[in-house]
């Protein structure tokens, strides 16, 4: 393993220290327990939007703390959900009295820890709601799995709900909106290489030079199947087809197309893939009205990509376009 780290056990804390120093104008970082909090929190009368999850997916979630997006993020150990005391600490620092919305990616650990925190917060009298994000079409949503994973769609939910909360929308509206975005978002990812978790020291799985892993999540867990390596056109088609047929997306749908790098795929390849995806969608009569391209929901240094499609309406477009100022997303502010 070659990484720019000191002790593997200190990776998250040292990275958070750096995040806090780099973006002291936007956020403050707390330790023991670890939380990332918007610098001007709590904002009285504003719904607090809080998310969190394992580290290793940067800029998710800490990089999305700031105006128009998250009020707080709870970073767990690498690929490990945060603990209830982190979530409680984050909420206590951002609760402006208008309620708290927890945005949780659908993983067993995240659900258990956020559920425990939500129970404790409710017992303290905090009006807390939880919306679970589960946009990954690679997983069959059935009684026989833990359900679909929360992946790329998370950043879209956080942006849109964050914009609504910034405008002063109430907790009911924010919660409903989060559910609408989740219901209209679908993602699928693939990998060319595996990530190496710092405290493990070697790659999470091994792939031959001529193989790719399709239907991967964002934790280095193997995907649904291993396939012979395809070219970019083949890879994009392999991601788009199951997404399109799942919702399903149809002719005349207005969509946001999010082309995401898993961390190790450079922008050169990502824009190449994005172009193929956008043109393929145009040929199907689907209107790509908003785009996002970059490494936003990553899996350490894994090479690979995911595509996320969100079906838009006027309201969602307006909230997507609303000003945002965070370390990782910034426009209009």
């Amino acid at each position, binding site marked *: 393993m070659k990484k720019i780290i000191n002790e593997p*056990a200190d990776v998250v804390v040292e990275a958070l220290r750096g995040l806090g120093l780099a973006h002291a104008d936007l956020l403050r970082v707390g330790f023991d327990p670890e939380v990332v909090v918007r610098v001007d929190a709590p904002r009285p009368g504003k719904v607090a939007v809080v998310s969190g999850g*394992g580290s290793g997916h940067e800029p998710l979630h800490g990089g999305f703390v700031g105006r128009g997006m998250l009020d707080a993020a709870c970073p*767990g*150990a*690498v*690929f*490990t*959900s*945060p*603990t*209830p*005391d982190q979530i409680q600490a984050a909420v206590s620092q951002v609760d402006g009295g208008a309620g708290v919305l927890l945005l949780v990616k659908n*993983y*067993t*650990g995240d659900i*258990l*820890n956020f559920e*425990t925190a939500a129970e404790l917060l409710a017992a303290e009298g905090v009006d807390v709601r939880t919306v679970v994000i589960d946009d990954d079409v*690679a*997983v*069959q949503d059935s*009684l*026989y*799995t*833990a359900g679909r*994973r929360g992946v790329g769609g998370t950043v879209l939910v956080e942006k849109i709900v964050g914009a609504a909360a910034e405008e002063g929308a109430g907790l009911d509206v924010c919660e409903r909106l989060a559910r609408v975005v989740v219901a209209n978002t679908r993602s699928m990812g693939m990998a060319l290489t595996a990530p190496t*978790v710092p*405290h*493990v020291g070697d790659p*999470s*799985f091994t792939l031959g030079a001529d193989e790719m892993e399709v239907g991967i*999540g964002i*934790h*280095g*867990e*193997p995907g*649904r*199947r291993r396939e012979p390596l395809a070219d970019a056109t083949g890879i994009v088609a392999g991601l788009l087809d199951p997404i399109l047929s799942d919702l399903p997306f149809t002719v005349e749908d207005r969509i946001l197309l999010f082309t995401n790098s898993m961390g190790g795929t450079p922008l050169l390849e990502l824009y190449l893939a994005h172009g193929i995806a956008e043109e393929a969608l145009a040929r199907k009569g689907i209107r790509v009205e908003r785009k996002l391209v970059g490494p936003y929901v990553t899996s350490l240094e894994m090479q690979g990509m995911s595509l996320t499609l969100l079906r838009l309406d006027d309201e969602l477009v307006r909230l997507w376009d609303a000003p945002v100022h965070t370390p990782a997303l910034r426009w209009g502010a």
Partner: protein
Amino acid sequence: MPCDAKSVAAAVLSAADTITAHRDELVRLDQAVGDGDHGENLNRGFGFVRAALEKSIPDTPGAVLKLVATTLIAKVGGAAGPLYGTAFLRAATALGDASELTADLLVAALRAALSGVVARGKAEPGDKTMVDALTPAADATGTTIADILTAAAAAAQAGADSTVPLVARKGRASYLGERSAGHLDPGARSTALLLNAFAKAANT
């Protein structure tokens, strides 16, 4: 020999040592079907448990287990933190404020631990989870604490071994579908390791 808070704390400390010794094995098992954090997270959590017990040992066996529970819930994260935390919390509740652990209390604690894990994680036997190890362990009987724990540990390991051919239906391994078959479930294995450490402590 009476089994007081000090004996229970000693058993927990030896379980912590066992987790440290098997950290890498649990990481490997979890890498095969999950994200490879199980050994690291449990080792980290039991490291905090060790530090807490070395500072001071609570007055009763139940209080010792409650300290284990709250530490794991606060420090581990992931699925293992809340699940093992709940198991120890329910076991602690079953022991109440008894000053000594008895065979009857132990049986009750094992059953309480199982029902807590099932309630939190919603897994059933056959889902390829720690429930596959804990369910047969909770059926263990015997006249002494050592007998019960020895039987529970053996049953847990047999239960863990039975997860190898299973297709996971809960937790991160379930994302793999059929590809999860052929691997030992890391949570079932760690359950067997913990019970085996408790049994060893009870037999010395």
